[in-house]
């Protein structure tokens, strides 16, 4: 279980290593509030879709499995969407279109196809949880960088003295690409160094 958790968070991190689910990662990582919200919603969907799909893995016919997975995932996303609209309208508004788009987040479908349909319910549940947390962690890292540099704030609070001029570019579209590029470069640099020493 510890291994699976480590895999999801670091070695197989869906965003930083497998490069899945990048649309939401780049689009909504403008503030920590958004990043955390999106991460937890995706974790919820991943967790329950992995459980449902692995429980039904012997029932779902081979030929229509992708379509069945998509229906299961889409149903869960609708649940999340309606819950957010009812209980957290502010978050629902700021994530907007990207809540329904969790359906086409390749990370969710990829786990269903590559893990949940071959493993037991318990293992799939842990896998969904750790992949979801890995996704959340990547989003948090990106959104922290972008919020600090782009707005000069951390969790909505000013952290710089008043003379600081925030780099507004970081909260806009190009900032998302640059941040993700630099984080992946940092990861590659670290693994290059490790590989060189060994």
């Amino acid at each position, binding site marked *: 279980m510890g291994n699976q958790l480590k895999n999801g968070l670091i070695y197989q991190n869906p965003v930083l290593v497998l*490069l899945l689910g990048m649309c939401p990662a780049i689009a909504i990582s403008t503030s920590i509030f958004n990043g955390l919200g999106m991460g937890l919603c995706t974790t919820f969907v991943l967790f329950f879709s992995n459980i449902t799909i692995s429980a039904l893995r012997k029932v779902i016919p081979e030929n229509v499995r992708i379509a069945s997975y*998509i229906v299961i995932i889409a149903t869960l*996303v*609708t649940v999340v969407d309606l819950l957010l609209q009812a209980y957290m309208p502010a978050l629902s508004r700021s994530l907007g*279109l990207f809540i329904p*788009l969790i359906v086409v987040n390749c990370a969710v479908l990829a786990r269903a196809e590559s893990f949940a349909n071959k493993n037991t319910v318990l293992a799939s549940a842990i896998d969904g949880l750790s992949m979801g947390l890995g996704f959340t962690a990547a989003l948090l890292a990106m959104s922290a960088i972008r919020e600090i540099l782009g707005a000069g704030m951390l969790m909505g609070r000013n952290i710089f003295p008043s003379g600081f001029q925030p780099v507004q*570019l970081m909260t806009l579209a190009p*900032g998302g*690409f640059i941040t993700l*590029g630099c984080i992946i470069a940092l990861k590659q640099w670290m693994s290059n160094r490790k590989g060189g020493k060994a």
Partner: protein
Amino acid sequence: MTVSQLFALSLGAILVENFVLVRFLGICPFLGVSKKTDTALGMGFSVIFVMGTASAATYLVNEHILKRFDIEYMHTVAFILVIAALVQLVEMFLKKSAPSLHKALGIYLPLMSTNCAVLGVAILNTQNEFDLIGSVVYGVSAAIGFTLALLLFASVREKLEFSDVPAAFQGFPIALVTAALISMAFMGFSGLKVM
């Protein structure tokens, strides 16, 4: 909608609110199939084709099924099913009637059902309450914007293969930084007002 409104809508979707570079929809295929210009072009044409037909199909489903039975909250499930079925149908139709086109687009079509730009355009159409023509025009223009961005990006990446990139930035990171630069260029269009 009048013709001038449609024109403004279309220009807006291609340049000002470019799906990939400003709205962040369809990033996966944007990064995945942008290594060569001809594959980029193939992907672009399939996206234009599927997004146009998907806009029309989801509009009809929304108007005549979801609204009629008052189950509009099911739109995510309904739309993704319509899109997946449509992609399958298009593939079968092309295989029978235009084998050469099918051969050219073949490998990109199945990828289309998990392209978030397609589902995104369907949801945006219903949110903005476009009519049938408006939906199709918006869908096709958004796809043209996607193709434009993809083509620009692919031609830069072809050159990038021969340049000397720091080891840590090789592969994906430098591609993302390149995308950021193209996206900055597209921000210049945000001052454009066409109304």
